[in-house]
C-alpha cells in the first residue's frame, strides 16, 4: 500500500471536473452534456473508491483523465451513446500525458470557451445560464450553487435539467460563434461572468467560502475569455481588468472576526499586488481599438481605487466623472447609489443625499440594505444621529450576510 501523500492541490477535483466536462462535451457533440457529466462523475467516484486505499497517485489530474477516458470508452463500447468520434480519437483526446503540453492547454481553454458559449446561449433563460455555467464549466455541485444564490436545491436542479434538455433539443453546438454573431453572444457571456463575480464578491448572502470560490472562478473565466484569440475583445479585456482590480481586495474585505471591512478601513498593503498589476495590464490592452463600454468605465473606477495610496488620497473627482459617464452608458439605481458615495467625497453629504432623491423611491431598491446603510452614513456625517439610526435599523431589518450584519451593528453602536 502506497503512503498517502500530502494534501491535494486546492480545487483539483472541481477544476478537473470542469476541464473534463468541457473536453467530453466537445468530443461527444450537441446534446451530450448529461453523458459528459456522468462520465466525469464516474471518474471522480472511482478516485474516491481507490485513493483511500492506495494513496493519492503521483499525478492525480492525469489519473482522473485516464479514469474518464476508460469510462468513456466503456460507455462507447456498450453503445450508451453514439459519438461523432472513434474510440481511438476519444482515447487520444483524453490522454493524460497531454495535460502538461502547452498546446494541449490551449485546446483545453478553447473547449471551455465553447462550453461557456453553449451555457450562455440566448435560447436558455437568463437565470439558467449562470447555474449551468457554474455546474459544467466551474465544476460546482447543485448544493453549492443553491447555497451561493440562497435558492432551494430542487429549484437549481430543475433549472439545470431544463437547460440541458433545451441545449439537447435545440442541438446547440459547443462552439465559439463566428464573427457576425460573436458581439451579441459575447455580451451574454460577459454578463454571466460579471454576475458570477458579484455573487461571490458582494457580501449580500450565502456562504463565505463558496462565495470566494465563485469570485475566483469568475476571474479565471474572464481571464480565459480575454486571452482567447477570438474572444479577447476590448470588452472582454475590460471585464477581466475590472474583476482583477476588484478581486485583489477580496481577502481584505472581511475582518478576522468576520466583520465586513469597508474600503475606507481596508489594509491596502494586503491587496493582491499581482492581481492589481494584471488588472492594469488588461485595462491598458482593453483601450486599443474598441469603444468605451460599461466594463471599461467600471474598470477605470476600480483602477482609481487601486491606484490610491489611501482612502483620503483617492482621486474622487476623477471617480465621480467616471460615474457620470457610467450613468450615461448604463444607468441603474445601483450605479446612482455608488455614485452618491463619490459625490459625498467631492461635494459633501448634503449633495450626495440630494443626488439619490429619486433613487430612494425606486421600488427595486426597497429591500436593498446598501441604500439604507449609505443614507445612514450620510445623515451621520450631517450630524443627524436620529435619522441615521432609523436608516441603520431599517438596513438591519433586511436579509444580510453575517459580515454585513456585524458591520452594521458596529456602526449602530458607534452612533
Amino acid at each position, binding site marked *: *500500500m502506497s503512503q498517502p501523500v500530502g*494534501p491535494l492541490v486546492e480545487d483539483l*477535483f472541481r477544476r478537473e471536473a470542469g476541464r473534463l466536462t468541457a473536453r467530453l462535451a466537445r468530443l461527444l457533440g450537441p446534446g451530450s452534456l448529461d453523458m459528459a457529466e456522468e462520465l466525469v462523475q464516474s471518474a471522480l467516484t472511482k478516485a*474516491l473508491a481507490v485513493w*483511500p486505499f492506495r494513496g493519492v497517485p503521483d499525478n492525480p489530474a492525469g489519473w482522473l483523465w485516464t479514469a474518464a477516458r476508460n469510462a468513456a470508452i466503456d460507455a462507447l463500447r456498450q453503445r450508451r451513446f453514439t459519438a461523432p468520434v472513434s474510440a481511438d480519437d476519444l482515447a487520444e483526446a483524453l490522454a493524460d500525458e497531454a495535460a502538461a503540453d502547452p498546446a494541449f492547454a490551449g485546446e483545453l481553454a478553447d473547449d471551455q470557451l465553447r462550453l461557456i458559449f453553449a451555457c450562455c446561449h440566448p435560447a436558455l433563460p437568463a437565470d439558467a445560464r449562470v447555474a449551468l455555467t457554474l455546474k459544467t464549466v466551474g465544476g460546482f*455541485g447543485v448544493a453549492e450553487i443553491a447555497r451561493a444564490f440562497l435558492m432551494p436545491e430542487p429549484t437549481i436542479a430543475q433549472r439545470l435539467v431544463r437547460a440541458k434538455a433545451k441545449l439537447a433539443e435545440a442541438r446547440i453546438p459547443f462552439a465559439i460563434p463566428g464573427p457576425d454573431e460573436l458581439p451579441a453572444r459575447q455580451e451574454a457571456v460577459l454578463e454571466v461572468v460579471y454576475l458570477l463575480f458579484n455573487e461571490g464578491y458582494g457580501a449580500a448572502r450565502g456562504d463565505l467560502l463558496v462565495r470566494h470560490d465563485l469570485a475566483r472562478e469568475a476571474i479565471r473565466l474572464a481571464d480565459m475569455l480575454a486571452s482567447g484569440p477570438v474572444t479577447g475583445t476590448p470588452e472582454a479585456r475590460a471585464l477581466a481588468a475590472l474583476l482583477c482590480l476588484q478581486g485583489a481586495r477580496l481577502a481584505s474585505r472581511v475582518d478576522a472576526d468576520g466583520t465586513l471591512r469597508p474600503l475606507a478601513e481596508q489594509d491596502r498593503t494586503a491587496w493582491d499586488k499581482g492581481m492589481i498589476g494584471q488588472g492594469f495590464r488588461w485595462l491598458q490592452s482593453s483601450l486599443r481599438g474598441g469603444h468605451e463600454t460599461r466594463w471599461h468605465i467600471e474598470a477605470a473606477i476600480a483602477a482609481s481605487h487601486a491606484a490610491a495610496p489611501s482612502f483620503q488620497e483617492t482621486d474622487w473627482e476623477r471617480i465621480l466623472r467616471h460615474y457620470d459617464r457610467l450613468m450615461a452608458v448604463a444607468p441603474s439605481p445601483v450605479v446612482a447609489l455608488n455614485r452618491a458615495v463619490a459625490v459625498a467625497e467631492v461635494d459633501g453629504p448634503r449633495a450626495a443625499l440630494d443626488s439619490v432623491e429619486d433613487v430612494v423611491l425606486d421600488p427595486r431598491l426597497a429591500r436593498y440594505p446598501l441604500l439604507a446603510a449609505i443614507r445612514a452614513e450620510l445623515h451621520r456625517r450631517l450630524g443627524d444621529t436620529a435619522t441615521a439610526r432609523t436608516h441603520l435599523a431599517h438596513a438591519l431589518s433586511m436579509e444580510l450576510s453575517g459580515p454585513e450584519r456585524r458591520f452594521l451593528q458596529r456602526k449602530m453602536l458607534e452612533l
Partner: protein
Amino acid sequence: MKSYILLLREDPTRWEAMSPAEMQAVIQEYGAWAGKMAGQGRLEGGQKLTDEGGKRVRLEGGRLVVTDGPYAELKDHIGGFFVIRAADYDDACALLADCPAAKYGTVEVREVDPMAKPD
C-alpha cells in the same frame, strides 16, 4: 499490540450526489486518517475490493456451486478493508473517531486471533 481488520461498509451510490469539491474533501479526510495511522506505526495494510459483490462457493454433492452475490443491501456493501494495530477493541474503535469510513458508512471491527499457543 494486536491486529484488527476494519471492514468498510458503505453505499457506493452515496458519492453520486456529491460535488467534486465534496469528493475531494472526503479523499483528504481519508489521507489525513491513513497518514496519522501510518505515522503511529499502526497501519498494516488495506485494500479496495471490486464493486461487483463477489462469489459464493459451496460444495453440493461433490459439485462446486458458484453463485454471484452476497447480494447484500447496498448499504452493507463492503468496499474495502484496512488492517491496523491496536491494544484492544476499545483502542481500535477509538481510532475510528476521525476515520471518514465511520462518518460515511459503517465499519465492522474484527480482532485477528493470533493463535499463538493452544489454550
